[in-house]
């Protein structure tokens, strides 16, 4: 990728006691992308995010924001970052508007017009002058998002933003986030342990397991055509296709191939010419769950949330 990354994590490591919580994690995040940070509970997502915004000290490694080390330019670096760490803690006895006004005062050049603009963006116009204690969790998340956006960040970090939201709230939050990414052009880094949420929201995923970055891949890879071949004997077909330069994935009663549609007739000819019986060929979409299991070797995730 030729675009300059807005954030770079370089060999980030966090050791607590004798335990390595984050192990040599390197990751680049680019403008205009929504990157999902996926991993099981306890994998190190929140720790990584807290190190990115200075809430936790790193043991070693560096964080570059817009090309400059955060350790040397903390204030300038963080002025380009908006963040929601888990459920945003606002002052419940103040109205949503007063909360935003309060946070606007703590940052430079935020006008009342800008406050009104972010309130509109997150769809809180009707309730913004009511006390936060009367808000639903979804509304508090949207208020947190508004606060994170006040200073027009180039980079937005959301740690488990949909925790505790009902399906309607998750959908609403996702739509707001998409709209903000498109209209504000910010790079978004969103952590979650919910596969379906990441799948619907993100352009790219980074998977972390036991503090190590397991894989990074574009979601467009998921959309590339895969076909399921029901055939017998599958092992023979697998060997044959491997020799033919394909990369088949062997399943118990067939295999999956990433090929273009026009290649299918010639593959069938090759298989039948080698006495392999082909019973069916059908499009196969690799779900994020398939990909996640591939990457983590079967690592657990809170999939129950996605059903």
């Amino acid at each position, binding site marked *: 990728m030729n675009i300059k990354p807005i954030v770079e994590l370089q060999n980030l490591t966090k050791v607590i006691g004798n335990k390595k919580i984050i192990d040599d994690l390197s990751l680049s995040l680019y403008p205009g992308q929504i990157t999902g940070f996926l991993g099981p509970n306890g994998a190190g997502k929140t720790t990584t995010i807290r190190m990115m915004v200075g*809430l936790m000290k790193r043991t070693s490694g560096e964080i570059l924001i817009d090309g400059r080390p955060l350790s040397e330019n903390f204030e300038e670096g*963080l002025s380009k970052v908006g963040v929601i760490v888990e459920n945003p803690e606002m002052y419940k006895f103040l109205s949503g508007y007063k909360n935003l006004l*309060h946070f606007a005062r703590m940052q430079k050049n935020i006008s009342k017009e800008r406050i009104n603009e972010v309130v509109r963006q997150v769809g809180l116009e009707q309730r913004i002058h009511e006390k936060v204690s009367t808000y639903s969790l979804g509304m508090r998340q949207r208020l947190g998002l508004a606060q994170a956006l006040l200073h027009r960040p180039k980079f937005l970090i959301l740690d488990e933003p949909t925790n505790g939201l009902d399906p309607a709230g998750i959908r609403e939050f996702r739509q707001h986030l998409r709209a903000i990414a498109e209209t504000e052009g910010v790079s978004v880094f969103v952590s979650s342990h919910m596969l379906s949420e990441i799948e619907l929201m993100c352009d790219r995923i980074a998977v972390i397991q036991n503090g190590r970055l397991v894989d990074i891949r574009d979601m467009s890879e998921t959309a590339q055509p895969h076909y399921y071949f029901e055939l017998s004997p599958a092992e023979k077909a697998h060997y044959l296709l491997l020799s033919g330069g394909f990369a088949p994935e062997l399943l118990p009663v067939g295999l999956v191939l990433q090929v273009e549609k026009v290649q299918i007739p010639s593959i069938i000819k090759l298989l039948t010419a080698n006495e392999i019986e082909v019973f069916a060929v059908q499009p196969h979409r690799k779900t994020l769950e398939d990909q996640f299991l591939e990457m983590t070797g079967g690592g657990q995730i809170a999939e129950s949330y996605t059903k």
Partner: protein
Amino acid sequence: MNALIRKDVYTQKMSTYLITALWFIIFTNFFTEGQPVRHVLLLIFAAYYMAISTSNKAFEKESVLINSLPVTRKQFVLAKYMSGFIWFGLSAAAILVYIFLFDTFAPFPTRMMTIPELLIALGCFYLIISLFYPLQFKAGYILATSLTIALPFLSLMAFRIILNIMENPRMVAEQTFFLQTADLITTNQWTIALSVLLISALLTWLSILLSIRIVHKTDFDHA
């Protein structure tokens, strides 16, 4: 930095101001006594109470939010100490108005606070918060409050004991000592005020350095 200092004023709960009014009742014995020492103690602890109320049980959660903003930890700590001046100023204003009203309308003797008395109160207030903040940053709000909240009650108790001694005809030696001490304080108010301020400034400076060190090492890992 200015916004960070004023933050606590903007987010102070109305109930804190109402509860602070209770200190007036306790320290003035239901608005019936107007000895200057009562007003000094009242000022110290009204300011102290308002200052620590901004660092209440939600402090850890608020700290996560504040420290995820473009704010250095040094600024975060300094703002806490600096905002003490705001709480002291507000308390002093309220107490001076109260003394004026008491002096004008109440049938009990009193007088307006002197500048050295205000400075002694300021020094003592900073001595207490110099103890409170490092404790809070290191061990949390509950422990810091538990260890420092006893101070107003201890000082009131000491004051009551001295009053009892002064009324006891069998304790002439002690009465002489306290009268001499009171005389010394009255005649050397400026010396005492400046000494208290100097000691307070030194300890506050050490406390700030200690708090910065503690907060710098802190991982905000709970939201």
